């Protein structure tokens, strides 16, 4: 028996091409620890297209199939069907997409896979903008954020798309959020997803020091703050309606999160207050759903 709750096996190697403090790189490391070597990765265009390393290198020791930007859901569905037709129902097919490949250009194929309930795990490592192309806004970019296409004076005025709600609305067996600040929680969710059949969606918060203008050494801290401020609650939704909200985490004001990143430097006190109200309202809504789910179970 290991003394550690986190598996000691390393399926991701050093020498990868991620920026310092990359949340997406850490997320992959933990996800692979959870899933083990019997995994095939399907990777659309995203930071990981680069992080994995140039031909003939690869930073992971599982098979990787790079695919077109908008095709993570559909290609992964095909890999699943192909493996199964070869008699392999055991290998986990993991689609690993950024927020662009999930929230935006990849949403149609993801929705198709979710609606068909294809037996895959779709993980989105969400760094809240098109970081691989150099920090352009996506529909995952939060209101108030600077990016190169929401520059100073024109910072984003629309809220972050509620991707978990969208995927859960397909009635998939499992949709969850996770962050690298709670690695044991993240690993547990991937391990759970591995044992379930059908579509599993895991939304990972993945700070990007390069794009968020945050100190690389604070990536875990920023991840923790996102959860503590309830901007990114840790949540599981089973079958599209059974909500399990993690409520044992000390709460902090949203301002504490925003202050760690220069991308929010333009935000005013009024905007902070507005975000606090929105976040509180969303939290209360989640609590209500959680309690409703608990009642339904009882």
């Amino acid at each position: 028996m290991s003394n550690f709750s986190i598996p000691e096996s390393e399926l991701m190697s050093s020498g990868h091409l991620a920026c310092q403090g990359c949340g997406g790189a850490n997320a992959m490391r933990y996800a692979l620890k959870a899933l083990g070597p019997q995994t095939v990765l399907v990777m659309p265009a995203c930071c990981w297209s680069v992080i994995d390393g140039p031909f003939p290198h690869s930073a992971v020791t599982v098979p990787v199939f790079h695919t077109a930007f908008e095709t993570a859901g559909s290609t992964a569905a095909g890999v699943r069907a192909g493996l199964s037709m070869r008699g392999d129902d055991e290998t986990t097919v993991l689609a690993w997409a950024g927020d662009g490949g999930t929230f935006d250009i990849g949403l149609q194929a993801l929705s198709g896979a979710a609606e068909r309930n294809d037996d895959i795990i779709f993980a989105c490592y969400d760094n809240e903008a098109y970081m691989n192309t150099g920090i352009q806004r996506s529909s995952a970019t939060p209101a108030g954020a600077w990016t190169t296409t929401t520059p100073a004076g024109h910072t984003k005025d629309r809220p972050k798309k509620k991707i978990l709600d969208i995927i859960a609305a397909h009635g998939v067996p499992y949709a969850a959020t996770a962050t690298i600040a709670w690695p044991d929680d993240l690993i547990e969710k991937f391990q759970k997803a591995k044992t379930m059949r059908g579509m599993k969606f895991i939304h990972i918060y993945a700070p990007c020091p390069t794009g968020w203008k945050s100190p690389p050494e604070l990536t875990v801290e920023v991840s923790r703050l996102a959860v503590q401020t309830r901007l990114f609650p840790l949540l599981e939704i089973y079958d599209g309606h059974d909500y399990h909200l993690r409520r044992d985490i000390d709460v902090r004001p949203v301002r504490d999160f925003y202050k760690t990143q220069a991308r929010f430097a333009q935000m005013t006190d009024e905007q902070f207050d507005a975000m606090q109200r929105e976040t509180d309202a969303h939290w209360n809504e989640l609590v209500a759903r959680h309690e409703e789910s608990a009642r339904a179970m009882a």
Partner: protein
Amino acid sequence: MKKVLEGNHAISYGVKAADVDVVAAYPITPQTQIVERLSEMCGTDFDARFIKVESEHSAMAAVIGSSAAGARSFTATSSQGLLLMHEVLHWAVGARLPIVMANVNRAIAPPWNIWTDQNDSLSQRDTGWLQIYCESNQEVFDTTLHAFYIAERIHLPVMLVLDAFFLSHTSEIVDVFDADEAREFLPPFRPIERLDPNSPRAYGNLTGPDNYYELRHKIDTAMRDALTVAREADDAFYNLWGRRYGIVEGYRTEDAATVLVTSGTITSTARTVIDSRRENGERVGLLKMRLFRPFPVEAVRTFLARAQKVAVIDRNIGFSIGGIFAQEVRAALYGASHVPVFSFIAGIGGRDVTPKTIGEILDITAASERPDRDVYWIGVKDEQLLYTGI
């Protein structure tokens, strides 16, 4: 076993005979019956998964995934659906996946038109897909098997192409057989590379100028090798079932002074016109273009270089330059022959190409020593232009 099948169902039976593992497809007129029949067959008549995707783009992406996992994979589409796939058509080629796709030739919108022409498939000319154009439903069934035979030997995807309605919805007697019989021609798919956790590899990683160039050169080489492999497939098929098509087919070309060049179902009509002109003593012949990619340069030279005139009929248009087959024929003959090549446009958007149309084309060709224009549009109605806006 002989069946009465429309072209679309001939494909479905071909897919069954090929013992395909994974089908992913999205319906589009006039391809729909392929998908419908396969929906009934997959998992019932033969062991296969059918992924009912939400778009053609996802259809191609899904068969890219299944083929990469080592499963024999098929899809079918037409027109707008093929155009939507364009990005991932290139992906299938770069990933060297032996996917087979049926494309039912249909005109491109706007304006909406569901009838046949070839601009959808010919727009994909440089994706690296093989393209085989069929003339009959028997050829459609047989070519489905040829396509997998060729694709799995050269590691490139193959598109078999048939005319909307003239083949897709027209019933003919088709001699079909099952996977048990077909296996002698088409053994089970044994890819040399596939996604396998026991042998982890990364496919498609960032590749710089040092290697990308050679990878594209390999695709070009494989495409050229496909000419030989396509002939092998034709021979092997003939030895088992007595039917052969060639990569091109010369029809009454011996001693022909004028040779028509056609593809698809216009070929059948042209055969009858050639026969009747021959009865009148005219030295005319026909070259059917079955393979478009790889382009059979040597075969085209063999059949056309010694003719006095060549007349190419294109059910497609390369705007401002003429028919697309005509351009390719001219390029193939360059340096090998000075034979004048007349480019005729006919039948676009499903306009009928009748024996009279083809007769007119032969008459125009007979009337001039050389073409007096880049392209002859046959049967353009002046009155109609007055009412169609720009």
